[in-house]
């Protein structure tokens, strides 16, 4: 079980949180094509390594936030606000 550092409550055990999957997926407008909508609904990257995902501190403050986590080592690289950009995203190629 991982330990996450909730931005509001501090370090807490993983079973207080629930994972909401990949974060920062732009929701296409109503006018988008069926293909684009299907991509939004069903297609995910599932990377081996760094993954930006959203978590909710359900048995705590109830707030959603973003986590940059290594899916192999489970190392948490960063915790950031739900509306904030992925750290280091601007500099990566």
């Amino acid at each position: 079980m991982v330990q996450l550092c909730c931005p509001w409550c501090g370090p807490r055990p993983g079973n207080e949180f629930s994972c909401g999957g990949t974060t920062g997926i732009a929701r296409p407008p109503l006018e988008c094509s069926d293909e684009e909508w299907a991509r939004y609904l069903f297609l995910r990257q599932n990377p081996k390594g760094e993954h930006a995902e959203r978590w909710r501190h359900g048995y705590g403050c109830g707030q959603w936030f973003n986590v940059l986590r290594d899916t192999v080592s489970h190392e948490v690289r960063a915790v950031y606000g739900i509306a904030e950009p992925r750290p280091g995203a601007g500099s990566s190629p």
Partner: protein
Amino acid sequence: MSGYRLAAPAGAWIDRNRPLRFSFDGRPVQGFAGDTVASALLAGGHAMVARSTKLHRPRGVFACGPEEPNALLDVGLHGERTPNTRATEIDAAEGLVCRPGNAWPGLKLDIAALNARYAALLPAGFYYKTFMKPHWHLYEPVIRALAGTGRAADAPDPARYDAVSRQVELLVIGGGAAGTQAALDAARAGAQVLLLEASPQLAAADALRDAGVECHTRCTVFGLYDHGLAAAAQGVGGAVRERLWTIRARRTIVATGAFERPMLFPDNDRPGVMLAGAVEQYARRYGVACGRRIVVATACDSGYRTAQALVAAGIDVAAIVDARERSGAEAPAGVAVHRASTIVAVAGKRAVQGVTIAPQAGGARHEIEADCIASAGGWTPAVNLYSMAGGKLRWVAESSMFVPATELPGITTVGACAGDFGAAHSPGVVPADHRPSRAALASLGRKPGKVFVDLQADVSAGDVALAAREGYRSVEHLKRYTTTGMATDQGKTSNVNALVLMGAQTKRTPDQVGTTRFRPPFKPVTLNTIAGGRSGERFKPLKRMPGHAWHAARGAAMEEFGGWLRPAAYPRAGEDLVTAAEREALQVRTEVGVFEGSPLGKIEVIGPDAAGFLDLMYVGTMSTLAVGGARYGLLLNENGVIFDDGIVGRLGPEHFLVNTTSGGAERVALAFEEWLQCEYGDHRVLVAPVTSAWGNVTVSGPKAWQLLQAAGFDAALAPAAMKHMTLRECSYGGVAMRVLRASFCGELGYEINLPAPHTQALLDRLWVVGQGLGVAPYGVEALMIMRTEKGFLHVGGDTDGTTLPGDVGMDRGIAAKAANFVGRRSLLRPAARDPRRMQLVGLLPRDGRTRLPVGGHMAASRPPAPIEGFVTSSHHSPVLGHPVALGMLANGRARIGEAVTVWHLGRAIEAEVAKTPFYDPAGERLHGLG
């Protein structure tokens, strides 16, 4: 082997003033407080205590700790029985009942022992080779039954279990010399230290407590997980049988020591062959001599230490047989040492009677009379926890060990488990020239006698050689093909020997063969321990309504509905649930009924953007509601699938009361929050789930207002003044209430929301006042009958994970709706607009009598055939006098009046597609005009 109890004061852990008796395999065994079942059995001279898993060969106690591969017992009776438990870890206790887990009908006469006769036919992989034609599944049940060890409990476990969760600065795992030193150093430097020791005794307990270290014994850490999490199982005794620990530590020091590795020689599984360190521990801890004449077979110096200790304890050591030419340790005076020699044969089947030894270089054989062989083949650092935490291992050729390769973040290994045997309390020195496989390799191909590598999985050196010959070179293949290391002991004494052998067979070093990563648990843990007391009713406690006692007093039959304990019906004497529900439904249709709807989800949505937010959430438009108005709405997920429904009422311009289904209260609030926080962060809205703060008393029936009027409710609530689907705030008896005129049963209905603690008082008041009006309580079953009569949708009953709004006839107005809403885009997909989609329709049996079975499928011919639909709701309607049903049917709304066949368990029932509602199609009754 004929073990016996040494004279006092031998045995530091036992209390000779407290003798006890327990039963093993139906025979009485004597022991003392502090004994394990294994030590008492050894003291009583019980050589054979079990049969092996596959070949059912006689086996004796082999080790003195959790690595025990042989002595697996079923402990306790009935619900308390725990199968497959190591005798070395069971405390001997007065009246304890235990039996061998793998012998039927008994140890001495074991029918499956015939396997041993045909051992040549049962080599590695024989299951896969022999039982493939025509199909493995034909053989599997019999093989599984034969392969099983132990019998599971046949009743619920009456014992109590509990769980603790801790956060600590430093966790030290293991209270041996290295762990104790690490704990003392850290505590003296001011750290908060928790030390867990698996055995019942902690040598330095006083010093540790003086230094402020919190210590617990009988507490085995069985897993190391992410981010410093450790899990441990503790045998408690007394009121609590076992306790689960979950510990989050900033730093963890693993000091789990090392396991001794057995020597490999023919018939090295005979009862009486034991690990040398175990023979020594039985003497020290329990005052037990494991035999009258002991031969030490060794390939390292620790065998000499064992011999020294045994001689000092007054036990006769016949000889030391050393595989090496030189040793760095002294033999005890008077004990013969045979260098560069190995055991080539063991006499005795059910107990060791003697050994034959021979020089490795060849030469004269030599027989020695002995009843116990102490086997010292070197040491295997207990890197299990380190490996679980993700640590990589490094092979040290000079001492034939895998040791931790690197430090892990927050995890340090110390002492023997780090490969460091240099401390003062060292269990033994592993010399540079140690080669545990040499003897085994030398003996390969010699007859008779099997050289066992893995005692518990019955894997021999020959099996490993066969796997190598057949090309199973990878460690993963070796493990799966031979099953070595796969038994409940996870190869604690066998893994390294198997890897060394495989390496020798394929001309590779053991690190080239590689190791498999260890997995939790370190040793078997009972499911009840993992549950930690959260079993039975405590697994998922049911919620109780505020009026629970009132319903119980009315004779309610309680059932679980969506996590709540609710009245299904209130059966009178002689009534079953269905009869009672039908009587209650009729009573509501003709008089008045009282129903508690407190579990109904209640969420307040407040803020300047509340109306716009609800427009985004619901299929319908909520922003156009007038204050005091209420509207039914469907909630969809992003796939356009219906996931909840309910009524939304407007309490103020920026204040809404959202009702959800009883089961959906939590997931709707969660969905609102997720959308609000993650997608619509600019909306100024507060979502406040208030389900348990408010009780709900629903009054339904033609006399509903009469009852409320008689109870003294405000005349503003009268049907003439308050329209259907409106919401009023009122005060009753000084308590502020919210009253919604709505109806799920089709009669005049009031849903009175009130502070939960007042629920019971209102139920009481309505009950007293309503006696003259024919009031009756009604349960969930009666409500389901009535809503089916009305054709009202039950989300989760009539709908499933594919149902779209159009499928249930609720897509009116979607095209014209201005706002986007969750799921809208998915409704535009071609599949969502397919005219062949299933639609919700009414169904009536042709004969007017047969209740259509829920789940029955509609098909033109006997299934297997294309399915056109299925029945989702079905009841006998007491007010109509015939059964009514709802179902999903392909293109159903265009087929009203058509005949369909419902198939159920091979039976065909003729039915007709019908329009809903079945009852009061004009909907006049809900205005109180009926």
